């Protein structure tokens, strides 16, 4: 990180020491946080599962009919089979990849969108650009989440990423507001003033000097967003507004509603456990990350 900053060639005094200390302290603090480390390890394990799915190492038969209807738990079917005889364990594993795909796409794009718009509006606070961004945030926040998402999913008809678009267009405002606040604080600081005095363009200042200083906020927002996206996916898929192609925990849970009456809960249990594991681990990781990155945060 520091190396990257030192190389920028504007000749502006980069507050390298402040930066260095923040990230170094954060790392040191995180390394001491046992819960956070356990969380990170579990998340990494899930990621490994997802990578295996992407590369076709396992869960390749998730769509095939490999057994009888509602086969019980066995060595062959670790979580039994579903109503049409598909292996629930493989479907659960496959869904891990979906969860990461949804979580990562949404989290990254939310942070990019929220970061850019928030930084721009914060940097130009008080101007008409700021007004428009604030207005947009207000509008988006005023529509209830599920209504908004449903509406976008409908408007985009059968576009496979309708759900992603819907989540991104509603989630970005939180990040945007945080970044805006931080940037307003930053823009009064010396190094920005200095860059401006040296005639560095506004876009360059935002991109090179201001945004990098909000990285810790973006990182934390990204982890929170990841969790939110996974949880929202479950509900949206249940409502029929979610994942179009493939398999997900949300789809498995909605599938399980077809089985309650007959007294079969394998789908529900499998999807719930797998999802809980990832979300819990991620929450612990996000907590530790927040503690580490925010010196003021009270733990």
């Amino acid at each position, binding site marked *: 990180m520091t190396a990257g900053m030192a190389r920028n060639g504007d000749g502006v005094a980069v507050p390298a020491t402040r930066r260095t200390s923040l990230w170094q302290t954060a790392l040191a603090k995180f390394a001491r946080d046992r819960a956070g480390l356990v969380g990170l390890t579990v998340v990494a394990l899930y990621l490994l599962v997802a990578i295996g799915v992407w590369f076709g190492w396992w869960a390749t038969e998730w769509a095939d009919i490999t057994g009888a209807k509602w086969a019980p738990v066995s060595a062959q079917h670790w979580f039994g089979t579903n109503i049409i005889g598909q292996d629930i364990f493989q479907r659960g594993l496959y869904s891990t990849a979906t969860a990461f795909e949804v979580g990562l796409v949404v989290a990254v794009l939310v942070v990019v969108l929220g970061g850019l718009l928030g930084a721009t509006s914060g940097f130009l606070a008080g101007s008409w650009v700021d007004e428009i961004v604030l207005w947009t945030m207000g509008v988006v926040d005023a529509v209830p989440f599920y209504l908004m998402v449903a509406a976008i999913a409908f408007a985009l008809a059968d576009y496979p990423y309708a759900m992603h678009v819907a989540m991104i267009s509603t989630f970005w405002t939180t990040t945007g507001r945080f970044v805006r606040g931080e940037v307003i604080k930053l823009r009064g600081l010396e190094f920005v003033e200095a860059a401006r005095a040296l005639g560095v363009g506004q876009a360059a200042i935002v991109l090179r000097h201001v945004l990098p200083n909000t990285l810790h906020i973006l990182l934390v927002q990204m982890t929170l967003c990841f969790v939110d996206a996974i949880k929202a996916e479950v509900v949206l898929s249940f409502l*029929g507004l979610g994942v179009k192609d493939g398999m997900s925990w949300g789809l498995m849970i909605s599938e399980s509603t077809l089985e309650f009456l*007959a007294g079969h809960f394998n789908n529900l249990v499998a999807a719930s456990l797998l999802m809980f594991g990832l979300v819990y681990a991620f929450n612990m990781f996000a907590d530790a990350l927040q503690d580490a990155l925010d010196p003021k945060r009270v733990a």
Partner: protein
Amino acid sequence: MQPWHRRLFFLRSIGGVSLACAVALAGGCGSGVAEGPGRPTLPGPKTFHHSFEQAPASLDPVQATNIYANHVVVNAYDTLFAYKYLARPYQLKPNLAEDWPEISPDLLTYRIRLKRGVRFQDDPCFPGGRGRELVAEDFVYSLKRQFDPQNRPQGGWFWQGRIVGIDAWKSAGSDYAQDIPGLRALDSHTLEIRLTRPYPQLLDTFAQGYSAVVPHEAVACYGRELGTHPVGSGPFKVVAYDTARVVFERHPGYRQEPVDLAAEGYDPVKQRYTGVERIAGRSPPFVDRLIIDFANDDASRWNSFTKGDEVQLSALPPERAEAVLASLNPVRLQPEYAEKYQAYSGPEAGFVFEVFNFDFPDFGYHPDPARERRNKALRCAIIKAFDWEARNASWYFGLATVFPGVIVPVVPEFDPALSRASVTRDVDGARRLLRDNGWTAANLPVLVYGQSAGVKQRMFYEQFRAELKQIGWPPEKVVLKQFATFGDLSRAWKESRLPIVAKGWGLDYPDAENTLQLFYGPNGSPGSNDANWHNVEFDRLYEQAAVMLPSPERTALYRRMNQLVIDDCVGMTGLARNRIYLWHRNVVAMPDREIVGGFWLKYVDVLPPGQSARPEGLGATG
């Protein structure tokens, strides 16, 4: 509905008296609505609490498009004809009509006389709030409403092009002051209907909610809100309605018509267990209050039913079949259920099926005859890959009937001897067919499987994809396209945008013509021929049969048409679900939700809790 806490208390309190009750009952049965001695009966009106899986969208007869709406509409309103309560197969009977119509020898003119003294339910929309007598003009008015676009009517297709002058009346602006030559009230109690060509199903259409009689005062008074505020002359008056339930009260002015069991088609062998003999000679309706819960969630509906003091009649969710049924064929209950409930099983009047859309050159018609032949092989191979038995086992717990062709088991023209090859899975045959016609994984087309949003529909797709994989169809070439609303899916069908159309069809009347018209060329999109199948021979036979009265000759034509559909591999067809109903033992009923619609509800009687409608010595299913 009884809350849980009161129920717990109640159960404890009746424990002590139930024995006394049983002894007293064994002494003298059949005293009609005798009250159980030794225990206070529940206060309040006699109530029948029914349940349904879906709420009707509107209670306006012009929009009574499905069985859910019909169930409510035919109880709030009256129709000229109705289906007999107990006769199976279904038979018509005069309802508002005094008798059968006089029909001219050329089958084009019908004269129908109405009963006298039939009164609409009291409602503030009438002068003085008192319902007036129903007259022939009311029927003319009600049918005109189906041709007035302002009402957003859905049933006009029954009569358009068939009743003389009705289409002209509509295109002239639907002016109710104008007469329709083919639809006239000769006097206050006589109707005359003139047809452009013979229409053997005409009287069936007059037994539908679509043709129920609405007083113009109610339309003037409630306007669009007629859809939530019915005012008819039927046996029950709607007092509350929302998407969760409808509540009716007895129409006190309903005409006195003692039940003649023989005329209703009573079968003493098969139906005695229901206890319907108790209603002989009495005038319906027999309950003061009728509640229908709309619970689209099977689990909660079933829980409500088995609680004992809530819903009294429910369809058996297939998921519970294994626990509840001792045998499938014939349907028999497990002893602990037979103890508490009565049951009935019968095939649905309709079917589910999936057809190819011949507008798509990948599967259907193609300018190149050689390709068209290969396309047929493709369709036939998919049909062979399709596993109806797996569908039945997964989703209907083996309770459905898989049958070849499009003539459904419930109609008299059904042919049980037809070859089952078209509904038998044959993976090797399918593979061979593909290979022999030059189809490989590389050149097979992409199949788009359109469905409405919903997890079950999604699973249908997954099942289909897995089955196709087994004949060598690459899974990535089977694509799901889900539509958020049924309306959007329906739009895709009507705009011919889906290569495979999977749908269910409920019969409007018990005549195979109603399903054969799904394949009649001129009914192509946006009509109901979703396959857009155009077969010259089929269309000729259809037109020939359409004007014939029921006869062995007509049945023979129907069956030839059926064979044409099978031979051209038009689609995977079909499956008729079996409905199994359970109801509490103190309810006297022979339920049915098919053709008869809601006509049976007025015949339901309810005995005090603890009593049984079932005569001694009979089983729960007769």
